[in-house]
Structure formats: C-alpha cells, structure tokens
C-alpha cells in the first residue's frame, strides 16, 4: 500500500520502455484498492504532474479512480474535468492504455455522461473519436466507445463526424449490445445524411442480428427499418431466413402501426396514406419518427412515377399528374425533373408538347470510370473473399466442429477419409 506521492513518482519513473510499463502496470494493479480510491479526491493536483502522452497508464489509473466515484464528480465535475479528460483522451499513447482497456472504457463513458449532463455533446466528439482509434486493436473491431461516439454525433447533429467511424467495416464484435447500438445510431446518422441505402444496410443488421430475447433497440431499429425501406424501395422485404426466431415472432407485434403504414403505402393512394398518417401522428411523434414518416409520404409520388416508367414509353404531363394523384401538371414536371437529377429515373421532358419519354439506362459501360468502378468492386470482393476463407479455416479447426464431424463419420473406413479427423480422438 503506497501513498499517492510514491505512486506518482513510480509513474513518472517507470514509463519508458515496454518492460518498465509492464512493471508499472503490476504496481498499479496492486495499488488499485479501496484505500486508494478513498484518497481519490486529491488526485486532481497530482494529475497536473503527469504527462498524458508518456505516462498514459498511470494517468489513466488515477483519472479512472477519480471519475468513478460520484462524490468527486459532483464536487469537481464540470468543465475542468471535461478539459482534463478530453486532453487525456486525445494525447494518450495507444500501447499503454491497451493494457487497461476496461478502465479506459470507464473514462470514456464518464466523459460522455458529463457532456450529456452539461448539454454540450459537441465537446465530446473530438476526444471520443481519438479514443475510438486508440483502443481499437484493428480498424475492424467494434468497441463500446463507438456507440457513445455515434450518440454524441447524433445529439450534436454532426453527422459528417460520425461518417469517419462508420466507414470502416466491422468484423469483430465483443458485446452484442455494442453491435445493436452501433447499428441503430449508425443507421440514424445515415438517415440524417439522406444516404438511405447504407442506413438500410445497418438497420437490417440490427434487425437480423442473433438475439435470444427481444430487445428494445431492435424494436426501434425495426420501426426505422420499415420507414427507410419504404422510402428507398417502396416495400418492406420479409425477414430473411437468418433472422433469429425471436425477432421474427415478436417484432411485428411491437411495431403494429408501422406495419399498417406499410400496407397502406402499398395500396398506392396518396390521400389514404396522408389521412392515416394524420390520424396517428402522435404515435409517430412519440417515437420521434414523424420526420421520417413525412418523407415516406413524399416518396409516394416518386414510387408512382417510377411505376409509370415500367408501363409507358412516353406519357404526357397531365397523364402523369393524374395517375400519380398530383394536382397539376406543373407539379408533375417538377417531380420528374427532380427525379431525373437524382438519377432515379432516366427520361427527357419535351416542354413544347408536354411529353415525357422514358429511356433505358444509358450506361454503355464504355467509359474508363466504369472500369475503375468495377475494378474497385472486384478488389473489395477479393479482400472479403480472403477474410471468408480465413474464417472458414478457423472454423475447420474448431474443436466443436471437429467433434460433430468425427461423430457423424461413425466407424466407416473409407480410404478417402483416411487423412481427415480420426473419429476416435475425442
């Protein structure tokens, strides 16, 4: 049991090479007991003696002991703590803090709680982004800090900041809760940026992730999933086979009103949809989904016009207005123009006689950009294929799998099977 000053001296002395840091880590673990925490109120001035970059591990221990006791937070919390913690997160050295990951996560969580309490989420964005990069073992790992970071981005409406974290593909997940939160918040950020296909992908992951019992995050994600897929595709796809059985059974029950909305949308009549939405507006509002629902409404026109492209080659603007239940041909022209600009349909408007002629996709695949596009897709796919093969190999060596396979072979003695698993091994 050492006094705090001795500990600080140790920290300052032993932060050079990795062996020293490991030794320091052991010392800190021994010292990390209740009596240390009892003194934690006094830590603040000691923190000033230490450098976050070089003495990251020691700093982390002291800081964590300080922030996890609520008494300290109430007394000394606020802006100063924010500044200290934020500086630490941006400046700390990644190797040292990886030795004590759970303490690091505690500090991040406390930082997030603090900024939310002070109602300044934007101040937490930069430090948490640095924290995400530092604690990740590889860019493909999901950490609890991801979810907190995305939440702050959402609250601060800084959607672009969240993009940098969302662009990495995730291959390793520790806690299922992290995955659900990440997918849900990530989906919301993409919705905010109006990138509906990517939002759909993330929400789809949240809905179809394996879950043994229903959780609220999946229910909320499913509600948004219905709305976004209505906006993007015009219909809600049924559950794929790999959805967990709990999800398949219970999700629809909890989101009944949205399912009704999608059936109403499928009927294709604007007025009905509008009245349905108006009558249930408070329900949608309580879920914070009213904005999305309004977007669903406006996408109804687009859907109808797109349906027309499949039937007609040319059509007059009045006919478009009539079948899409728009009020005037001018509105129809505006809608068609916007859709052409967004690239959703291919058409030309002849203003003289008010005719719109629909075209095929004019892509001739003759350009160099297309070559680059396909080439990059192939590269991505090759990388993914390599990953799959390595996972496949790992599974083949998994003892659970080998046991099942060995049992199935029974006592047959095929000469072909001679170099596979010896079934009597287990």
């Amino acid at each position, binding site marked *: 049991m050492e006094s705090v000053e001795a500990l600080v001296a140790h920290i300052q002395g032993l932060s050079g090479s990795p062996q020293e840091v490991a030794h320091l880590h052991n010392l800190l673990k021994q010292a990390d007991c209740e009596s240390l925490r009892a003194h934690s109120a006094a830590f603040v001035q000691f923190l000033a003696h230490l450098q976050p970059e070089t003495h990251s591990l020691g700093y982390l221990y002291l800081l964590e002991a300080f922030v996890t006791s609520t008494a300290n937070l109430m007394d000394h919390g606020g802006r100063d703590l924010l500044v200290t913690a934020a500086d630490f997160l941006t400046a700390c050295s990644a190797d040292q803090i990886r030795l004590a990951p759970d303490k690091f996560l505690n500090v991040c969580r406390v930082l997030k709680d603090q900024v939310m309490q002070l109602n300044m989420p934007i101040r937490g964005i930069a430090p948490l982004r640095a924290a995400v990069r530092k604690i990740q073992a590889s860019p493909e790992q999901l950490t609890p800090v991801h979810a907190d970071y995305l939440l702050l981005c959402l609250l601060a409406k800084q959607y672009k900041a969240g993009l940098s974290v969302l662009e990495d593909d995730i291959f390793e997940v520790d806690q299922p809760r992290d995955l659900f939160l990440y997918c849900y918040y990530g989906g919301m950020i993409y919705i905010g940026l109006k990138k509906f296909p990517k939002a759909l992908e993330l929400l789809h992951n949240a809905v179809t992730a394996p879950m043994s019992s229903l959780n609220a995050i999946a229910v909320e994600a499913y509600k948004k999933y219905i709305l976004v897929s209505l906006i993007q595709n015009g219909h809600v796809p049924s559950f794929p086979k*790999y959805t967990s059985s709990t999800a398949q059974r219970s999700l629809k029950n909890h989101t009944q009103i949205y399912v009704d909305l999608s059936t109403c949308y499928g009927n294709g009549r604007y007025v009905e949809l509008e009245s349905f939405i108006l009558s249930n507006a408070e329900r949608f509002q309580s879920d914070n989904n009213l904005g999305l629902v309004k977007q669903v409404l406006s996408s109804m026109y687009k859907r109808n016009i797109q349906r027309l492209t499949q039937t007609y080659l040319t059509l007059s603007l009045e006919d478009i207005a009539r079948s899409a239940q728009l009020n005037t041909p001018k509105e129809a022209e505006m809608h068609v123009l916007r859709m052409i600009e967004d690239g959703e349909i291919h058409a030309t408007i002849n203003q003289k006689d008010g005719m719109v002629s629909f075209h095929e996709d004019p892509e001739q*695949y*003759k350009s160099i950009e297309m*070559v680059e596009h396909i080439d990059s897709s*192939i590269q991505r*796919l090759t990388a*993914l294929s390599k990953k799959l093969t390595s*996972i496949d190999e790992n599974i083949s060596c998994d003892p659970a*799998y080998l046991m*099942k396979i060995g049992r199935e072979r029974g006592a047959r003695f095929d000469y072909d099977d001679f170099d596979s698993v010896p079934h009597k091994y287990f």
Partner: protein
Amino acid sequence: MSAPSDSATATAHAPASASAASSSSGLTFKLHPLVIVNVSDHHTRVKAQAACSGDGSSSSGETQRGSRVFGCVIGVQRGRTVEIFNSFELVLDPVSGSLDRAFLEKKQELYKKVFPDFYVLGWYSTGSDVRDTDMQIHKALMDVNESPVYLLLNPAINLSQKDLPVTIYESELHVIDGSPQLIFVRSNYTIETVEAERISVDHVAHLKPSDGGSAATQLAAHLTGIHSAIKMLNSRARVIHQFLVAMKSGEVPVDNSLLRQVSSLVRRLPAMESQKFQDDFLMEYNDTLLMTYLAMFTNCSSTMNELVEKINTSYERPATRRGGRGAFM
C-alpha cells in the same frame, strides 16, 4: 606424394579462383539440357532428403555450405566438338575424397550397353565456385578420359542473373611459379537441343499438375504464362523509359543511335487512337471485368455457404419447443 600435392593445392588456391582465364584448347562444347536437369534434380533430391532426415546422412561432400553432389557426364567427342548428352550420379567417398571407382565402372558398362557411342567425358558437381579438392577428383578421372571436363552448377538462385548458372571448366597445363600445374580454365559452351528434349524440358519447366486436363488448370497455366510475359515486358519498358528520362534530364549523354533504336521500336507498336476503338475496347474490357466480378461473387458465395454449413454443424441446437427454428440458417 604429399608434399608436391600440398604445394599444388596451395598454389592452386590462387589460380583456382582466377579461373576466369579462358580455355585456349579450341574445343567447342555443346551441352544438352538433359544434363542440366539431371544435375539440378540430383541436387534438389539430396537437399530435400537431408532436410527430411535432419542433419543425418547428407550424401557427399563438405557440410560447410550444404552438400555437394557429384556425378559423371557422358557424351560424344567428334573432332573438335564435345557434345555432352547425358549424366549419371556418383558417390563420393567422404573420407578419401575420391570417387567410388567400382561404381563408376559398373555404371559405365551399363551405359555402354545402351548407348554404345557415349564415353565418359568428365564429371560434374554443384557449388558456387571451383574448390581445391576438385583438382584431385579431376586428376583421378584422367585415366578414364585424358582430358576430362568439369561442369559446375551453381544452385544458388540469383534472380538478377539472366544466364544459366552452369560453367564448364577444362584443365590445362600452365606454368605457374616455375612449375607446370593443372588448373581449371573456363570454356564457352552452347546449348543444343533435339526436338524431343525441348518438349520434355518445357513440360518439366511448367510443372503442370497431374490432372492437367481440366480446363481450370489449363486456363490458370495459360494466364500465368501471359502474366509473366507481360510482367517482363513491363519491366523492360520501364527500363527504357527511365533511360530516356535520364537522357532528357542530362544525366546520361545523349546517344543518337540508341534513340533511333528506341524510336523504331516504338513505331513498331500498334497504336490506334480512334474513338470507336476506345469505345469497343472499353466495352469489351468492362465485359471481361464483369465476368470476373461474377466469378468472384460465385466464389465468395460458395465459401460463405461452406462456412455457414460448418457453423450449423458445430453450433446446432436441437429443434426447440413449438417447432421454433433452431439453426442459424
């Protein structure tokens, strides 16, 4: 006997490394590729066996740098042309440092029966340079053939070297420090192939798998060949390009004859610049890329399928009550 031979080996040390002296005997050497393949096969086999059995019985020679292999080369000598057709392996007695004569003679008899024209022309060994002890073996062979030839194969793989790592040495009597000695002098040689040899060497060089009949392996082999050819073309073109850039920046003195050669080479390339050609070319290129993409997709899906099956077998729960779906997919 020991004193002269010591001095011979002592002084032979210097000229042995200076065997860059070229032969003046005027003999032309023709080497068949079978010999090279035989020697390299022998070396590889011995090396693999030595690696398998630990550091146990490596067949012959020094253990300083891996073992050397030894053997005899046979062929025909017509007038001034020495044509080396074939070779066989010999065992070197590590104690006495000399070749096993009984074995050599037995082999010679056998080969005489099949190839009555072939004589023992010399011997071969592997290594990077001529050793001092080689002269002893060379002299020992002199009673079989009065002027044997020594073929040295360098098994070290040197990627920058473009020529074959095979050197042929003859022995000549030179007067060094007042006493006549035999030293090794390098000779030039050419490679001579018969059609059958060319086909078989080609076959060995490409190492097709045993079931080379399937379309996939043939396609892979074909594409590998094209890929290596294009790679070499690319590197050569890059060299020329660097040279031209250096010439432009003044580092290298301008050489007009070289420039003329380069320009004639460039003019020989077919180059079409019309828009229609671009369009058609890119369209076909994109089609091929899409096919590759599709193939990659199929590959990925099949891997994914296997993966999921494995996951299902290993983590499958028995069907739960109410007939709920237990498996992952």
